[in-house]
C-alpha cells in the first residue's frame, strides 16, 4: 500500500540534448506517512513531484514504474492520468496561492473545478464547510475574491481545494516558503491535521527548508543533482546522517542560538554539476571530501539500516564489513 516508485527516470528535452533531472529514483511512501523531499534548487525535487501528477512537455518519461495502492499509474499518459488527478493523487504546485482565478469568487471557482471532475458541488458543500472550519477560515471566503485574502489564507484555501476529494497522495510543493513564520507554522500544522483527519492518506512535502520538515515529516528524502542521496526517518536524517552531502548540508544550517563569534559554520564549497552532461558516477563526487576512484560508478541506493537508505560507496563498504 501507499506509493511505490521504481527506477523512475525523467529527463527534460532541450535543443542541446536531454537534461537528466531525475535518474533512477526508487522509494516507497507508506500509508499515512508524511515524507519530506529536500534538496537545493535544481536538484530535481520539483521534477519528481510534478512527474507523478502532470508529466508534460518538456518533461520526458524515460522509464520506471509508479504504483499507488498497488495500482499502476499511467504517469506518461496525460489523458489516462485525468482519472487519477485530484481524486487519487493531488498536487499543490509552488505559488498555487497566486494562481487562484482573480475574476471568480472562490466558491464559484470551486464549483467549476468540481464540475470538471463530475462531482456535484451541492453534495460536497457540507464537507467543504467542515474543511474550512478545520483550517480556521470563515465560511464567507466562498463569497470573496482571492484578492481579499492574505497569503496565508489563500494557501490554506488551496490546501482545502486540493484535498477535497480525499486523494490517496498529496504532493505539496514549497507550500510554506512564501509565508511569514507565524502563518508558516499554521499551514504546516494544518497539513499534519489533514493527514490525521484522513483528508489525504499520505503526503510528500517538497521544500528547501529542512527545519520545517523536522517539525512535520515522518521521514525525509534528500536529493542531489537528480539522484537520491539519502532516505531515513526524520530523526536519523537530522541527528545521524550518513551521506556526506546530507552531513554537510545539515551542518551548514544556522540553528537558533548559534552565533558567529562562538561557532563559525561553513558551507559546501563548489556548486552542483550541470545536468545536461552530468559527471559519470556519483554526482556529488566533485564536492565530496571523501571521494575516491570507485565514485566514478553510480553508487546503489542501499538499505544500510532498517528504513535507512544511502547512495554512497563509503557507507556501502562499511555496511558490507559489518
Amino acid at each position, binding site marked *: 500500500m501507499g506509493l511505490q516508485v521504481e527506477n523512475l527516470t525523467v529527463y527534460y528535452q532541450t535543443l542541446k540534448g536531454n537534461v537528466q533531472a531525475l535518474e533512477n529514483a526508487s522509494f516507497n511512501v507508506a500509508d499515512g506517512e508524511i515524507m519530506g523531499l529536500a534538496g*537545493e534548487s535544481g536538484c530535481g525535487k520539483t521534477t519528481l513531484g510534478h512527474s507523478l501528477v502532470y508529466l508534460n512537455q518538456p518533461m520526458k518519461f524515460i522509464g520506471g514504474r509508479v504504483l499507488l495502492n498497488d495500482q499502476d499509474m499511467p504517469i506518461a499518459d496525460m489523458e489516462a492520468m485525468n482519472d487519477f488527478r485530484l481524486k487519487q493523487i493531488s498536487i499543490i504546485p509552488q505559488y498555487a496561492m497566486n494562481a487562484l482565478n482573480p475574476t471568480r469568487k472562490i466558491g464559484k471557482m470551486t464549483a467549476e473545478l468540481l464540475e470538471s471532475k463530475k462531482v456535484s458541488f451541492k453534495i460536497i458543500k457540507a464537507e467543504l464547510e467542515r474543511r474550512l472550519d478545520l483550517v480556521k477560515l470563515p465560511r464567507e471566503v466562498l463569497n470573496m475574491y482571492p484578492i481579499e485574502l492574505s497569503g496565508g489564507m489563500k494557501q490554506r484555501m488551496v490546501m482545502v481545494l486540493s484535498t477535497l476529494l480525499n486523494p490517496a497522495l498529496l504532493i505539496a510543493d514549497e507550500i510554506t516558503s512564501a509565508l*511569514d513564520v507565524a502563518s508558516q507554522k*499554521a499551514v504546516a500544522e494544518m497539513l499534519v491535521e489533514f493527514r490525521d483527519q484522513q483528508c489525504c492518506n499520505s503526503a510528500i512535502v517538497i521544500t528547501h527548508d529542512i527545519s520545517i520538515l523536522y517539525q512535520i515529516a515522518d521521514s525525509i528524502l534528500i536529493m542531489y543533482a537528480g539522484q537520491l542521496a539519502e532516505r531515513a526517518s526524520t530523526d536519523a536524517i537530522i541527528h545521524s546522517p550518513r551521506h556526506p552531502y546530507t552531513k554537510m548540508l545539515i551542518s551548514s544550517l544556522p540553528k537558533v542560538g548559534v552565533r558567529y563569534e562562538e561557532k563559525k559554520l561553513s558551507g559546501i564549497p563548489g*556548486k552542483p554539476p550541470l545536468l545536461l552532461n552530468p559527471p559519470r558516477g556519483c554526482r556529488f563526487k566533485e564536492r565530496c571530501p571523501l571521494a575516491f576512484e570507485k565514485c566514478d560508478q553510480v553508487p546503489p541506493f542501499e538499505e544500510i539500516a532498517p528504513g535507512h537508505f544511502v547512495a554512497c560507496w563509503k557507507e556501502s563498504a562499511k555496511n558490507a564489513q559489518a
Partner: protein
Amino acid sequence: MLKLSNVSKVYKVGAFGEKELHAVNDVTFDIKDGEVTSLIGESGSGKSTIGKMILHLIPRTKGGIFLDETDVSELKGAALKEYYRRVQGVFQDPFSSYNPIFKADRIFNMIHDEFYPEVSSQEWDDRIYDALKAVGLNPEHVLNKFPHQLSGGQLQRFLIARALLLDIKLLVADEIISMLDASTRIDVLNLLADLKSRHSLSILFITHDLSLANYISERAVILYRGCIAEMGVTEKIFTNPMHPYTKMLMASVPRLDQRWEKADTVVEQTLNPMGTTAGCIYYERCPLADKICAQAKPKFVEPEPDHFVACHRVAEKIS
C-alpha cells in the same frame, strides 16, 4: 554612526489618496560603528522601507536620519554623491540587480567613471582584483562574464565587492541571502561578518529569518507593522524575549533542535490594514491585551540594560 529619530513613512492610498497607510511609524534606533544590526520583521513590517529610506531611495515623511549629525534626507547633488561613497546597499534578488545585456563587471567600471575618474585604469583593475579577493572570489574565473554565467552567490558577492570599492562605512543588506541555497548562504553570511571585523564596517542586516539574524548580529530590532516591538543586544532578545510578539515569533521559528510545542497557533485575522491605532499596534493579536493596550501607545521600558521593550504589560511587571 547612523541615527534614525522618530522616522515615519506614510503612503497615500485609495483612489484619491484620501487614506493614509503608515508603513513605518515613529521608529528610533541607531546603528553603532563596526556592528551588525539586524532588522527583523515579517512581510509588510516596513523593514525594507527603512532600508530604502536610509539609502535615500524614497523620502521620509517625518523624522530624521542622521549620519554623523548631518540629516541624510536633506542631501542633494554633490553632497548626496559623497553620502553614497560611505553608504551602499545590496538587495534581495541578485539576478535583477544586473542588466543582462552587459557583462557583470560593468558595475565596477560605472563606479570608476562616476566616483574615481582620476584613478588610472591600471590601478583600478588592481583595486577590482583586491575587492574580488576580499569577497572570496577568484578574479580570473568571474571577470568578463555575463550575469547568467555566474551563480546567485557569485553575483551577490560581486555587489558586495562593488560596495567595498567605494570604501564604505555602512552597508544596508536587504534580505541578501534569502534567494541563495542553503549550502552557499552561510558563506555569504560569514563573508559579511568577516568584512565587518576587517574593514570596521557597520551593517544593517534586514531579514525575516531569526536564526540568521542571531548568527551574525550584535544588535537586533524587532519590527511589527511599522513599529519597533523590542530591541537591544541580540543575545538578550533571543534568550529572554519579552514582547508577546517576539515570543510568538520565537515559538514559531522552525528549529532543528526542538519541535514545535503543541499550542494553538494564532491564525492571522483580518487586521486594520492602515496601521493607525491609538493603542498598541499588536493589540488585535496579543494574548495579553488589556484595556490600556487599546488606549495608549506603549513606551519603551528597559527591563535589563540594553534591552528595550514596548509593551504595557512588561512595563507593569517591572514597575
